[in-house]
């Protein structure tokens, strides 16, 4: 029985700052499962996720005094963990590994799907996980927070340090890419691998086509992320 179990997160952080050597551990214990799930699903690799969570929590431990209280403690912890994951993904992109034979390996993608789901829906779960893994990292992080972990858009925006509109856009675009990828994988299994890159690349073609289509009279925003950074 943890004597500090009833304390609020803010109380625990304050106690940690006041020298209570056990307060931060209680805070970690309280949130570790959610932080882990976010890290694992964002980064997709168990060891990397473990390192990211550890680094992030060490940082939070060191910098607790700088927590301004603008957001909830758990939001602050999530932000640090997600940033740690995204930074690792960016680092992987900056130092790319040898491409896989199909040439479609994106370096922001997890090296493998997450651990297997229950046997009864194993195939569906694998396909969904793979489609999630194929998303750009920022879209994946937003979807993990909102669609999987169930955080409100506003809270996810605070966690990622972006506008709510950006979260909505990242989630929507990610879902759309996943929908296309899932349809491709399920409906055209033999051709699926060859089609994989389409969701990521096809939009640019589409955007170009749109610009000469019915909407050509007024310029449409590009399909990049510029518009959603509101």
């Amino acid at each position, binding site marked *: 029985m943890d004597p500090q179990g009833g304390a609020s997160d803010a109380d625990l952080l304050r106690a940690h700052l006041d020298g209570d050597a056990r307060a931060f551990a209680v805070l970690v214990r309280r949130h570790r499962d959610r932080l882990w799930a976010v890290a694992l*699903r964002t980064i997709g690799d168990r060891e990397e996720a473990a390192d990211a969570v550890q680094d992030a*929590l060490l940082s939070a431990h060191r910098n607790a005094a700088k927590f301004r209280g603008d957001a909830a403690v758990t939001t602050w912890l999530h932000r640090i963990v997600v*940033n740690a994951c995204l*930074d690792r993904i960016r680092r992987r992109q900056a130092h790319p590994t040898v491409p896989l034979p199909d040439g479609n390996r994106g370096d922001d993608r997890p090296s493998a799907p997450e651990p297997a789901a229950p046997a009864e829906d194993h195939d569906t779960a694998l396909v969904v996980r793979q489609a999630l893994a194929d998303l750009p990292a920022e879209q994946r992080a937003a979807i993990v927070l909102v669609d999987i972990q169930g955080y409100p858009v506003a809270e996810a925006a605070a966690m990622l340090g972006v506008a709510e509109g950006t979260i909505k856009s990242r989630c929507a675009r990610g879902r759309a890419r996943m929908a296309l990828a899932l*349809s491709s994988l399920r409906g055209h299994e033999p051709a699926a691998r060859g089609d994989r890159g*389409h969701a990521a690349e096809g939009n640019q073609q589409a955007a170009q086509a*749109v610009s000469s289509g019915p909407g050509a009279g007024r310029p*449409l925003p590009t399909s990049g992320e510029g518009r959603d950074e509101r």
Partner: protein
Amino acid sequence: MTGAEFRGVDIDLLADYIGGALAGTPDESVVATLIADDPAWRDAYESLSGGMAAVQAELGQFEPEPMPDDVAARLEEAFAAPRMTLVRDAGDAADAVREKEFDLAKRRAGRRLRWVTPIAVAAGAVAFVGFGLDYLAGRDTSSADKAATTAGGAADSAARRDNNAPAPARAESGPGAAVAGKGEAPRPPQILATGTNYSAQTLALAPAQILSSRSAAAPAPLARLNATATLQQCLDLIAAANGAGPITTETVDYAKFEGKPAIVVRFTAGNGAWAWASGPSCGTVSGHADTLAKVPVR
């Protein structure tokens, strides 16, 4: 639905519309008009709306993902287990407070080893020295730290700097030099071999014997730390474990702590003056500061 049939449709823009990201913006009406007027957009809208809803439903059914026991144990070890008793005032045991010895250096060293393993052990050693220099020169602020204080931080960019950090300067400096401020001419620490058996209560007291000579011989268990480079590495890791930036080492005493061979280092840093006892494995490449105790000196 593969996307190929949506030629002429900006799928990202359509997704934004479906997901509500365009609400209240001029683009919302633009897309609404396109859906109303253009069959390609209308078909794409109908198809993609259902697909996105299905995806969202699938994602909502993901099972909880509890932290594995081994990862949880790592965190427990890091945050939950005070490993030593410290006294704020060595002269008043009643004021003794338990503080956590937080062996950050050990964890950093462990992570670094994983990062550099594919390159080479030698290259790893160079990078490690570079890291120490970078850190102790006050340039080590991991982006996780930034994330802890700012919106845009990202964790562990120290690792990037580790690999890019200049390695060679350390070899030109003696123990204590690299931990002094940039550009200063560091005063070398006094090297002692008092053999004193310190305790938590006496650690903060000045050494009883001053043998101001670098040639003071370390007893056998500490002989490894007699080498300048190894001693420097030990001091680096103590500085890292102290976590308050560069340290200025005043004395290094080859001694004992509660009967065990220990190197006792007195230094000042951003968080004050400290007496720090480390065991014989302090400064091994794969190791850590091997901290036995630390007390503030008043």
